[in-house]
């Protein structure tokens, strides 16, 4: 959960002269907060047309002996396809 903690800490803003808050110290709370953060970020992504971007992204060229079945997932860095050789 270290990435989650880093991203959440960045979102929460700088700790401003207060004692370190304990809220996200517990791993379980960190997981709950992370789930909420991701859900809100996904909602914001809708307003940016994230799904349209994926839909409009042209398919890359594949080697001739690969048969593409479907998209498994996608993210900021690329798309993962299920393929058979």
């Amino acid at each position, binding site marked *: 959960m270290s990435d989650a903690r880093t991203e959440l800490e960045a979102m929460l803003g700088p700790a401003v002269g207060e004692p370190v808050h304990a809220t996200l110290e517990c791993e379980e*709370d960190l997981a709950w907060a992370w*789930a909420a953060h991701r859900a809100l970020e996904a909602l*914001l*992504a809708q307003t*940016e047309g994230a799904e349209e971007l994926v839909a409009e992204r042209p398919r890359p060229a594949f080697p001739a002996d690969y048969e593409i079945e479907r998209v498994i997932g996608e993210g900021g860095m690329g798309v993962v396809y299920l393929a058979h050789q």
Partner: protein
Amino acid sequence: MSESVARQLWSCTRQGEAAAYERLFALQIEPLLVYIRLRLGAGLAAKIEPQDVLQEVYLAAHRSFAQFEYTGKAAFFRWLCRLADNRLRDWHDHFAARKRQAVEIPRSAPTGPVTALGRAEDRQRIEQALQRLEPDHRWVLLLRYFEGLSNEAAAERMQRTPGATRKLTARALVALGKALGKKP
């Protein structure tokens, strides 16, 4: 990461493409209605239709579109949320007395049926979970995520210290996560 569709649409709109303008606004409708319904609260919700607020916001956005700059994540949506917040803050005082001007609202962004359904379910789930939170938890998340305010700006609006606001945001996220009932 590639440029978002919304930002591309904004660039095209600046070059005078009317279709891009329509699509850019259309993308925002459903999420903006979520914000408006949450922001209205029980008191105002009985008196004001979210669609009316939406219409007011789009009219205000249309008028001041030239001043908007696409700066960061979800910048356009967050700008609309802040406009909505401004409208709602003085709604009682001004709106009733003003002559309402009709503005045509574009339809929601067209997408495939499965995607559209999935998105609608996600939005509804988040809206219901936010609705169940304590008012201050809901408010801080609306300020930070929807309006895109910094911790300091949110603190000022809530008349709390930045430290207290930071803690409140953390607690609000934990509460929302539990209300959503889903851990990653």
